[in-house]
């Protein structure tokens, strides 16, 4: 399946991009577990970040995970999105989103999940270890693969306030990146329902971030849609649980 191959590639490129742009950062390891036993100190904080896929027909692409302080804001409703977030939302590849983040002084580390896309009813966990600070914030993003440019995620969660063994949990809405028309055609969506194009630099939609209005699907009268009613969702698509374990 092309999406899975694409993800392995993106994971590799993510690793390279992160390494090149952030060589001075400690405990940095894209593509999975970023615990670093060589740098254990009393001030380390470890967080387990789990995302549950609560949709019925939308695979989630690998999670882009960023730890930062409040000066970094990954997206804002009504504003245009970065090329990195456009790429994540259209193709599922988080690498440009993460490398953009790493170029920001407010970003402490970034990584992505390592197991490829994960489907409805399943979950993915990323464990990260960073120097603790009360000002730590967390951002997580993932594409809904059977869409043109929908993504779910959370941003600017204050995980620095969590004590060891505390956890926070919430459900996450779905955003429309606004960078690609929601045509739902087979040639325009990268997920398994379509196997079409991922990222395209052209911006032929509103070019501002909105709350996603959902997919229409052929079952509901959009006859050119490659989707059926099973791919719909209502509002929220994910549950995000963050637990500080150290």
């Amino acid at each position, binding site marked *: 399946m092309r999406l899975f191959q694409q993800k392995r590639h993106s994971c590799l490129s993510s690793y390279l991009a992160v390494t090149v742009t952030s060589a001075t950062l400690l405990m940095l390891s894209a593509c999975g577990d970023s615990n670093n036993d060589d740098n254990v100190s009393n001030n380390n904080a470890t967080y387990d970040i789990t995302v*549950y*896929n*609560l*949709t*019925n*027909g939308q695979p989630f692409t690998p999670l882009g995970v960023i730890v930062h302080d409040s000066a970094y804001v990954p997206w804002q409703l009504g504003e245009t999105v970065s090329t990195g977030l456009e790429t994540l939302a259209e193709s599922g590849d988080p690498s440009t989103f993460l490398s953009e983040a790493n170029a920001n002084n407010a970003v402490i580390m970034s990584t992505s999940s390592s197991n490829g896309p994960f*489907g*409805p*009813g399943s*979950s993915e966990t990323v464990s990260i270890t960073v120097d603790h600070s009360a000002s730590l914030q967390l951002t997580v993003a993932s594409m809904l693969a059977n869409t043109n440019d929908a993504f779910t995620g959370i941003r600017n*969660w204050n995980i620095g306030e969590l*004590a060891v*063994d*505390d*956890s*926070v*949990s*919430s*459900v996450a*809405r779905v955003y429309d990146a606004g960078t690609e028309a929601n045509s739902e055609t087979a040639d325009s969506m990268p997920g398994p329902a379509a196997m079409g194009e991922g990222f395209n630099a052209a911006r032929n939609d509103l070019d501002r971030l909105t709350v996603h209005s959902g997919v229409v699907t052929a*079952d*509901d009268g959009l006859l050119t849609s490659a989707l059926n*009613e*099973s791919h*719909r*969702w*209502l*509002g*929220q*698509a994910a*549950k995000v649980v963050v637990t500080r374990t150290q």
Partner: protein
Amino acid sequence: MTGNTDSTARNGFRKHSLALALAASLTSAFAASATQAATWDVTITNLTNGNHFTPLLVTAHDHGTHLFQVGMPATLPIEHMAECGHLDPLLATPEVGAIDADTIANPATGLLAPGASTTAMLVTTETHLSVVAMVLPTNDAFLGLESQHIPSEAGTYTYYVNAYDAGTEANDEVLMTAGACSYTDIGMMPGAPGMDAGTNGSGVATADSNTMIHVHRGVLGDQDAIGGNSDLDSTIHRWQNPVAKITVTVTP
């Protein structure tokens, strides 16, 4: 005072503190005599346009009890509730137990119609509240307030609740025409109390791709009352979340 605390169903940001949990369990274990029962007046309002709720279960419990968990499989008693509206299996579980001062079943004495409200009065020493009922007409949609912490301070607290898909039955949107509802049915909605559903639908969907409890994707419906895929009316039976508003007035 009025607290306005979003439930997990919305954009609430819940915090589970182990310290608080320990304090709570110590309180119940060693200071039970000092624990005053509080009264919770729990009012449930049906916010939908055209969906009825089956008899509601309103139950107080401790922080470790979960009637259901979003993202996890539905238990058999939850499947009974979500597919047929049956509460007896839940009332037979240790998590809920029999009807008593802080477990109320069917406060509306029947269905809760669109726009209608009902109130259950609980007298309890517990800290958390769960509310469930099936959404009709659907295959296995239910409204769920899941193990919501209720403050001990006097006040009125408001929560908005999603419809979840139990993940246990295909959303075929075909209405049963005879017989009693059973959780073993493959598809088939047990009733359309608004008497506004169609007939002869050929079936919208086969089995769910997501077999865990998940956010319901909504019903499809159609405009063919005597055929089409769905027996639901797309102008009546669709909803957006939230589907219910729950207010809890705490009187210590």
